[in-house]
């Protein structure tokens, strides 16, 4: 036990592009993207609910597609564009999805909200006219315990209409 802990952990220099900014970091190879975002880059908007790929809370976008940051290693995604919740708004201007979530009460405790917003953004970029069932399908990997999902569906539909 002691030897295992005191041996040098392999560290590598990795360059990650997060929200359009490139940063080089010296990281243990086994550290997940979730941990790197939160602990090394202080981007704590990305939340975690299980760290096992079960709840969708830690969703980020990789090249625009939703991925679970708790199951990714930074070494897998060098050179690819990572978007976190901090990168959704344009400066102080909320993204239409964020604005719709505010207006329709789609965030209660707010903990699942970053992941759901990013999954929804990916959906709307691929499909600007989703049906309610298509929204359900796209967001089915994101659990929410507060809202009963209803206001989230309404907010995604409102944002979709405004973005078209």
């Amino acid at each position: 036990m002691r030897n295992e802990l005191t041996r040098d952990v392999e560290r590598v220099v990795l360059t990650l592009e997060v929200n359009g900014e490139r940063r080089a970091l010296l990281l243990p190879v086994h550290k997940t993207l979730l941990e790197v975002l939160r602990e090394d880059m202080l981007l704590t908007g990305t939340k975690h609910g299980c760290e096992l790929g079960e709840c969708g809370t830690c969703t980020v976008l990789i090249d625009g597609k939703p991925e679970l940051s708790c199951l990714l290693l930074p070494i897998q995604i060098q050179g690819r564009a990572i978007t976190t919740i901090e990168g959704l708004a344009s400066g102080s201007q909320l993204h239409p999805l964020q604005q719709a979530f505010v207006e329709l009460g789609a965030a209660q405790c707010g903990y699942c909200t970053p992941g759901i917003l990013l999954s929804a953004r990916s959906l709307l970029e691929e499909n600007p006219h989703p049906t309610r069932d298509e929204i359900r399908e796209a967001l089915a990997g994101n659990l929410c315990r507060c809202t009963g999902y209803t206001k989230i569906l309404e907010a995604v539909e409102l944002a979709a209409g405004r973005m078209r």
Partner: protein
Amino acid sequence: MSDRPHLSPASGEVNSLRVVGKRLPKVDAATKVTGRAVYADDMLPARTLHCRILRSPHPHARILSIDTSAAKRIPGVIAVITGADLPVKFGILPVTQDERALEHEKVRYVGDPIAAVAATEEEIAAAACDAIAVEYEVLEPVMSIEAALAQPKDERIQDYGGPNNIHKFVSLEFGDMDGGFARAAHVREDVFFFQGNTHLPMEQHSAVATYVDGRVTLWSSTQVVHYVHRALAKVLELPMNRIRVIGAAHGGGFGGKTDPFAHEIVVAKLAMLTGRPVKCTLTREEVFYAHRGRHPVLMWVKTGVTADGRITAMHFRSALDGGAYGSYGVASTFYTGALQTVTYDIPAYKFEGCRVFTNKPPCGPKRGHGTPQPRFAIELHLVKIALDLGLDPVDLKRRNFVEPNTRTVNWLRVTSCGLEECTDLVLRASGYRERQRRPGHGMGFAISSYLSGAGTAIYWNDMPHSEVQIKVDRGGVTAYCGAMEIGQGSDSVLATIVAEELGLQPSEIRLVTADTDTTPIDLGSYSSRVTFMAGNAALEAARKMRAMLVEAVEAAGRTYDEVTFEEASVLAEARFGTLTSAGSYTPPKLAGPYKGSGVGPSPAYSYSACVVDLDADVRTGLVTVNKVWIAHDVGRAINPLLVEGQVEGSVYMGLGEALMEEQVFRKGLHKWPSMLEYKSPTFLDTPEIQTFIVETVDREGPYGAKEAGQGPLLPVPPAVCAAVHDALGVWIDEIPVTPEKVVEALRRKGKGEPARYGPPRFPDIPFPPAIKVEPPPKDLDASTAQI
């Protein structure tokens, strides 16, 4: 600033409400959608140490020795503590101070905390926990209600309560039971079981502590900073003025973060020892074991009715599987018997309840605290009685609805009651009466009621349950309150009420909340009490502030309509100096004249009615809910958007409990302590929910408001079961309604056996003789004695 609305002289009048009743965004919404809200695990003060807790692998064992020497030698380990460092017991209820932050004598469930490590890295702390050697004497675990009622093979789980592993008995009788049953034309008995389930908040519990200048500061994901404050003071043996507890942004509670927890005490102790910040975030598996969720409850109910379905007497028994510790369990036990009378007029009522200890994670309060289980039982029981009599179940229930402004046989004061309107709305919208019969399709109806805050505090005192202070200077308004925003909209309600009174918008009110150093007390976000109690405190503080502003404006020879809020505040500050006001709320003394009357009274009760429409597959037993209609009497919606959110979330959670969620153990181990295996409804499983808000304008609620966060869960499980019966002709008298149970009930039906899946019998429990209580005088406002 020119668009700032003018102070309205009549803003206290409900017919001129400007912001109350409007669909306004939550005041913290923008913070949350941008990822800027700071939850406890988001905090990482400089030099933070990471804490992991060693937990028992055995459900029941004596600890013979704990050797931490190897753990302490691991580089990066800064401190290791055991129960010897934190020997003082605590517990949420004064009568059950039975927990230790770290246990060094005996463990009572898998997951019971034993030792804690603070290290420079979380991985090192986890490895150090693995290096702690604990020697156990394994004891026979007690894993069921039946086993807990029997003589223990080795020893009892706790050294109080009894006989055997019984924790608590309740036995109360109101009115003339013998006479009630004697005049009944029909008497029926049923047995039901409601399986335990857990809150499953998206955020894992987390706490960060610092120790600076002899003072502990703790940021935690808690629903109740005040109770954590009290527990820390007791266990750390520090005066409360040397401890500060701050509620971090909160990622979901549902009752699960209402107890003080071991990790909160442990990080504070480790911060004191190391002089460094210490953080502990539970893993998801640990969250399942921390639990404090829905009690599994076995229930027996016997009711007498007249030929036209009027209830003449009811006898209700409950047996709660409490898990290893007291938690809120004494209150939970009373709650399984308290609120039956708040929806139906029951002239004679007897309640016998019993909570047992088992070697499982402690159960406590989850949304509806102790009342969804009996609500499930009583709603289905009345449907069965109606069918026995050839009556329509909805008609039978309606015939027994309580009237507004009455007092129940167990002395609960009912004020506003919108049961009739709620029922009309969901029946009409759902087309319940006119539905076309088709195979496998069913609809079910149920009602419920819940507290707008518990009428008595957890620890006996005469102080207010909520206090609010307001500061105004140079046009800025700050409201201070201990209330904890957990996503339900507590901050928005406070801001809305203050804004309403001062003639502002909620977004213009700065809030300082849930900080034991800077905010006055609020007893926290549980029992649906914040809108009613903190809301009333805010109303009082805001009206006092408005009176000062008005006086100063008038003294200057102006009228309210002429001046902006800034002008009013400058005039008032010049006249009075520092502008502060305070308000508080203490519930009226409502408890009846009997021991145990403290559980059940509330200044007002919410009411709900619900219709569930579903299809049930006769081959697979799979139930698909198509739609839920729900009407909720919230008194007045301070913000209808947020009320709808609470109702929709309640319905969703009720569907999860009804159809899939269960906390089940095998040899002391949780069968599925993960979010994948513990099934909860996803976007795909949650049907359309149509919500109707009913406003009865309660006479004591702020602007007439009552609760919304818990009551609407309650009618959902029984409405699901009633609909399954409607669809397939089988009774599933046990929650959750899994496909296996439906298929088994259909198999029994096919063989000509009773078409039912559920518990066969209620165990023989040596309930003590009932305390007989005279019914209250008919006059609603007759004074009630205090115990």
